[in-house]
């Protein structure tokens, strides 16, 4: 087996020239994906792959090339391409590799050695069980499809400032897509249940099955409501989509480059005192936790919004250098794979949980809308701060869930939404979206629910 850290160091040596910085990233993974449908395995894929990315910085000009070909010739072609591309880039004095920093020696619990020996049949069983649990949870389930996937990834990073580091991580996930049908109501709906962890043994087929059954049946027979301004409750998975947009808006580069509705608001109160947002690259068992980021900077925990006050942003090396002064990288350089240049991105980014349970939040609402599913594509914009999407869920009447709702839109602005968050639940859930994002159940007041023509919309 090739020593990839050694190889990365050698590539850095070959790519470094007078006044030119170089960095090499090697990723090597083994993954399994499988799908169970109707109690039978339909698809099974098990393979390994690897990739190399070479970044050179020549007088502030960046060139990048990648390959999956690790032959000597393939590597040399990649190094040459990176140098060639640097020649056409625009020089930028803030482009530079990070200074060498010590990586704290701490077990982040992101590697499950057991995954190496979990058999394929155990993985198949988990998926089968999740599918079965979905059917058992509700008789209206018409179809369920269970997917399981995992990967064992090794990351090797070296640069010409002397950094050389490696770490390994495991990820295991399973999800069920369910379709529910109700003949009497002449309606069908789809739902989704998901669980993920670095640790295989933490995945719960029961939880996934129950969740996919709940989400697919909850809105069966759902009707629209008159257009009105009301209180809504976002389920954690729904709120997490909004959290992802907030994470984008709180990236240093988004603010520096006019792509955030939060421009000019740093240090001011932008949300209610219930809103505390955190990014923690060192969260134990976090799906985006790592000892160092995509450039070799130690990861850290950053408090971005503290009880409504917008305090900090997340930085990579470039955005911190550009800002100058006391700004430093928060260890938030991310890249999707060896095909991408590093850029600022959230790690484990989440809304800090509060005290009340979901049921207690709902119990406190006389009239409102509990939202368990939204669809949006570009409807939540970190740039304009607009926030509109299609939603379904259940209506809340006198503190209880009542009629199913479907085919309505909800709209507000992110500025309004942050100010109108009046409760945050104690049920924080992290999802493997864009790395790792999470939220508890959240209550938001004064949201416009668009449905049928408003004849007598209640005053907002």
């Amino acid at each position: 087996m090739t020593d990839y850290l050694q190889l990365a160091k050698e590539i850095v040596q070959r790519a470094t020239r007078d006044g030119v910085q170089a960095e090499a990233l090697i990723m090597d993974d083994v993954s399994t994906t499988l799908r169970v449908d109707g109690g039978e395995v339909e698809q099974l894929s098990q393979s390994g792959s690897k990739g190399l990315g070479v970044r050179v910085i020549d007088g502030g000009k960046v060139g990048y090339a990648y390959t999956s070909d690790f032959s000597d010739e393939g590597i040399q072609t990649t190094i040459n391409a990176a140098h060639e591309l640097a020649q056409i880039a625009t020089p930028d004095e803030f482009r530079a590799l990070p200074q060498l920093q010590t990586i704290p020696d701490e077990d982040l619990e992101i590697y499950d050695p057991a995954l190496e020996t979990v058999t394929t049949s155990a993985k198949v069983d988990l998926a089968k069980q999740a599918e079965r649990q979905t059917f058992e949870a509700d008789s209206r389930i018409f179809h369920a499809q269970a997917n399981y996937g995992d990967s064992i990834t090794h990351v090797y990073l070296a640069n010409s400032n002397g950094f050389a580091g490696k770490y390994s991580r495991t990820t295991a996930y399973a999800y069920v897509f369910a379709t529910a049908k109700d003949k009497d109501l002449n309606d069908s709906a789809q739902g989704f249940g998901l669980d993920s962890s670095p640790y295989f043994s933490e995945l719960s087929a029961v939880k996934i099955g129950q969740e996919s059954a709940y989400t697919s049946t909850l809105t069966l027979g759902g009707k629209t409501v008159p257009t009105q301004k009301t209180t809504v409750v976002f389920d954690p998975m729904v709120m997490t989509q909004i959290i992802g947009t907030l994470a984008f808006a709180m990236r240093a580069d988004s603010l520096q480059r006019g792509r955030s509705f939060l421009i000019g608001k740093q240090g001011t109160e932008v949300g209610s005192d219930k809103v505390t947002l955190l990014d923690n690259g060192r969260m134990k068992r976090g799906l985006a936790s790592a000892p160092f980021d995509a450039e070799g900077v130690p990861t850290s925990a950053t408090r971005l919004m503290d009880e409504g006050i917008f305090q900090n942003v997340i930085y990579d090396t470039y955005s911190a250098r550009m800002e100058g002064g006391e700004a430093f990288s928060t260890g938030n350089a991310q890249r999707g794979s060896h095909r991408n240049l590093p850029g600022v991105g959230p790690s484990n980014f989440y809304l800090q949980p509060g005290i009340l349970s979901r049921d207690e939040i709902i119990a406190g609402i006389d009239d409102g809308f509990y939202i368990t599913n939204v669809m949006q594509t570009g409807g939540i914009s970190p740039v304009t701060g607009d926030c509109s999407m299609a939603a379904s869920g259940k209506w809340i009447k006198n503190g209880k869930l009542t009629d199913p709702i479907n085919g309505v839109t909800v709209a507000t602005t992110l500025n309004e939404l942050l100010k109108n968050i009046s409760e945050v639940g104690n049920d924080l859930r992290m999802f493997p979206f864009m790395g790792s994002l999470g939220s508890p159940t959240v209550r938001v007041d004064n949201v416009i629910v668009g449905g049928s023509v408003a004849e007598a919309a209640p005053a907002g």
Partner: protein
Amino acid sequence: MISKETASKVLAVAMKTGADLAEIYVEDTTELQLAMQESKLEQAIRGTDRGAGIRVFFGNLVTYAYTDDLSEESLLRAAEAAGAAGSGSAKSQIIDLTTKNSALAFPIVKPFDTMSIAQKAEILQKVDEKARAYSPHVIQVMPGYVEKHRQMWLYNSDGVAVEDDRSYTEFRVGVTAQKEGVLQSAFEGFGGRVGLELFDTKDPYQAAHNAAESAVKMLDARPCPAGEMPVVICNGWGGVLFHEACGHQMEADFITKGSSAYTGRVGETVANPIITAIDDGTIPGRRGSLRFDDDGVEARKNVLIDKGVLVDYMWDLVEARRAGHHSTGNGRRQSFRHMPMPRMTNTYIDAGPHDPQEIIESTKKGIYIKNMAGGQADIARGDYVFNATEAYLIEDGKLTAPVRSATIAGNGPKALESIDMVGTDLALDPGVGMCGKGQSARVSVGQPTVRIPLANVGGTDN
């Protein structure tokens, strides 16, 4: 990339445990990406992705193994792994691999190397200048250029041997404008399964101008009204509505599982008779066009809906085998690391009888959608949503004020039944569409101007 002898050996190993069919898919892809921000060329990326995937069919079970090492030894190892699910002995011999030809050709007039990287970068630089010159309100310009050369070879144990050499060129520009604390952004782009001749007929500077104009115009947009109202959707990219709201529900994987609203409805009237919808993988130069799909099946033009009547779904090899149907050439995969699944290619609603001007004039009060971000659909229910990035109020048959953040939601099959006006002005999109369904695929959409008499519009003005 690999010899037919190697392919035959690999297939024989994959078949030796009693499989019904085995296939090897080889891919060699190179790409170049250039992107600017802050008037700086800051992303210059070149990359290579090369490998093979081996797929083996045992009844309803499909197993897969891939490798980025194309040596015979590594391919044979992958074949062993993919064939490991079987427990019998070889059922049949590999039929001779004779390369199949197709009359379909997508010739590249100007290969990527007819322009230097520096010249390509210069286009982006000028695009940046052009957009910034449009208005002092323009604060950010993001031009980008991508060229991708993806070659594929596919061999299977039924004797299929095909290749498809795909080149894609695309240009895009995003513009953000700011005034009095309000930010708006707009996006333009074009591309196709073409070489650099793309720039002979499409003007990146005009696109820069249009994006800047649109972003600045939307600065004065007022909040969109909320509630149910008529929606008129522009031609071209507006076809994303059909793609999301109905197209996905006509993909065979949702049909064989019975989860789509269109299951079992072939021969039924599912739309107004003025609607004919087509998925056509053979259109020259289009982004979704294929010589052979990623199952090795020749691309075709498939009528999905003929004058309101559902004709057929879109099939890949797996679903076709499952249902005893034939593949319609819709099997596509993101890369050699993925198994194919049913996907759209170039999907559009055909031209109808109405003058587009008349469609707007006959609408008393509603919304006109001129540009939009992508969309999303709930398959089981057929519900869809998309977000308009440039929209206007229609008042007394005229386009009036621009409105911001309009989300349009509704039910796809119901919307399709209800569409009451279809324009004569069929157009395909500019060619930068990307469809996500677990895997990403380049697609095209299209339509004439279309009116939905009642859709749910989500906005902040009630």
